[in-house]
């Protein structure tokens, strides 16, 4: 994703460049409107997502409410 910046006035420092809101332009339409999984492109990203988002099952460091390191 391309990060965007914008110039803002900072007290005592004149104008500084700061990171601005970064989002995809436009509004998806039709069948693609709600599609979010396509945002993850590489296999590495997808595996990383599984370990964080689906950490309940695939995270190595996370045991949630079950608090058990050895499987039942």
């Amino acid at each position, binding site marked *: 994703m391309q990060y965007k910046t914008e110039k803002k006035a900072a007290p005592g420092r004149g104008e500084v460049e700061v990171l601005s809101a970064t989002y995809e332009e436009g509004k998806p339409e*039709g*069948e693609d*409107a*709600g*599609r*979010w*999984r396509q*945002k*993850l492109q590489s*296999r590495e990203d*997808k*595996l990383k*997502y*599984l370990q*964080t*988002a*689906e950490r*309940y*099952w*695939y995270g190595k460091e996370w045991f*949630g*409410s*079950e608090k*058990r390191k050895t*499987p*039942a």
Partner: protein
Amino acid sequence: MAEVVKKSIDQATIEMIAKAKTDECNIVFDRAETTKACPIGAEGSCCSMCAMGPCRVPLPRGKEETPEDKKKRRGVCGATAETIAARNFVRKIAAGTAAHSDHGRRVVSAFLDLAKGKTPGYQIKDEQKLLQLALDMGIKIGDRSNEEIAIELGETLIREFGKQEGELAFLKRAPLKRQELWRKLGVAPRGIDREVVEAMHRTHMGVDQDYQSLLLQGSRTALADGWGGSMIATDLQDIMFGTPSPVASQINLGVLKEDEVNVIIHGHEPQLAEMLAVMSRDPEIVAYAKSKGAKGVNLAGMCCTANEVLMRHGIPIAGNFLQQELSIVTGALEAMVVDVQCIMQSLVSVAQCYHTKIITTDPRAKMEGAMHIEFDDHHAAEGAKAILRVAIDNFPNRKKNVYIPPQKTDLIAGFSHETINYLLGGLFRASYRPLNDNIINGRIRGVAGVVGCSNARVTHDEVQLTMVKELIKNDVLVLQTGCAAMASAKAGLMVPEAASQYAGEGLASVCEAVGIPPVLHMGACIDNSRILIAATAMVKDGGLGDDISDLPVAGAAPEWMSEKAIAIGQYFVASGVFTVFGVTWPTMGSKEVTNYMFKDFEKIYGGMWAFEPDPIKAAQLMIAHIDKKRKALGIDKSRERVLYDMTMRRQLEGA
């Protein structure tokens, strides 16, 4: 008219029932009046398992049964009313599990063909889900191609059906405590087919004659459906056709179009529907439709196939189970394409009143009087085009009696577990935490799954709609699948705006913040497996106990009719969920068996069955159960988070 109004609360349905009458076309609503349900079969008191019977052992009517009466309530072989009721119930579970699981098996074989490059029309649409299943099944990922991984995955999953020992792989997804309980009770399924076969064996004349023992096998079989056949079908369909994401569409008979060739795809397995969705837009097909005087091809869904293509493509839904004949009654349907499950045999005779072609496509499900065009995944595009051409050729044959009711409602569908997780937390912090937090702070009281069919023995759509409205008004978030989901969608409950209109203040505030409807469409009936995963995610996220039976959740199928619904209900109960069914209850002929399932099951599984045909009372039972669980968790009083200032902090430290 007043008599007709009682048959449904859906205006399009009411209008089409009246039209069928004018057109002198006999439909399900007429037959439900003329064919009364057998009261002995309805309570599970008829046994036809051998040729000394059928034996009928009903409860005495209008008086209490004496011990002497009870002794006499036996079949010729001596089988008690308890054994007979339990055997009948377990056979329903076996049939439901077989239906879902045979669907699952067909999906695995299509998946394997895809992976081996034998089905050029299909491709792997969701690599992430493929990787997820590879992790589940311990399949090496590395830099292997998706196809290599998919072949190993398909070959591993197909073995789940014929496995004889051990336990099903997906049981490991369940909360750890639940897995231990299943093992302790001896209900962890070994192989999907094995459990169905053993259920059929044990219910054969003269085998298992202890109702408690029979019902244990019922649980093991049902779990082989929910955590086996159904879950495999859902997950592989996600890999092949995409994991559902939010998608907008419309529902009800008004989605049919007067100036286009209308084709309805009806049934359960999505392979053909997926290809029809693509091919209905093919320029060659559109041009062919135009050559016959139509503007194009309008594809709509019916029953669970509808849910599959709605969730993934936004294809509109023409209606739920009881509307299948009515779509033909519009006089504007060129073809109804069917595969397996929930297809009424009367479609052929209804079609004879109009011009509709009924096209069967699956070698396992043929119908006398229908046209059969067998669908072969290996030549999917050609097969889909051949079917569409038959429909287009039929367009000029429309008769004069065309009337499409105007009703159609907007809806948002596509709430898979993955999407809910993403919507609640975002791409970088996807999580069920916001849901759990809002349950803990009391904005959301609990979660209910309202699923199942529609049934001509009750007012169509009214029972489920009344229940769902009662639940959301009481701040219970509702998850839906199947034909039940369609009832809510038709009534406008599946758009975000419904939150402020129908939901309680707490639930509405959460829905508005996240931007979701108060009633979430999670897919077809096999996708009830998604609800199991969502419930497990709630447990694993923490703060709501350590098993599904600790959660403030409940389930219901208020207008159920199919044996699959019984299998689904039993796997929810055996997974720890309190589950209420409406319409009728098939073990009423034995008080012992019924009490065992309604009361003692709670001590065994933490979840139990209930029967309540009144939707408000049923919703109140669910809410009472949710409140009981909230109390047990110590979250029965809603607590807003207190922000401590320095004075309060000092007081706390000094205490």
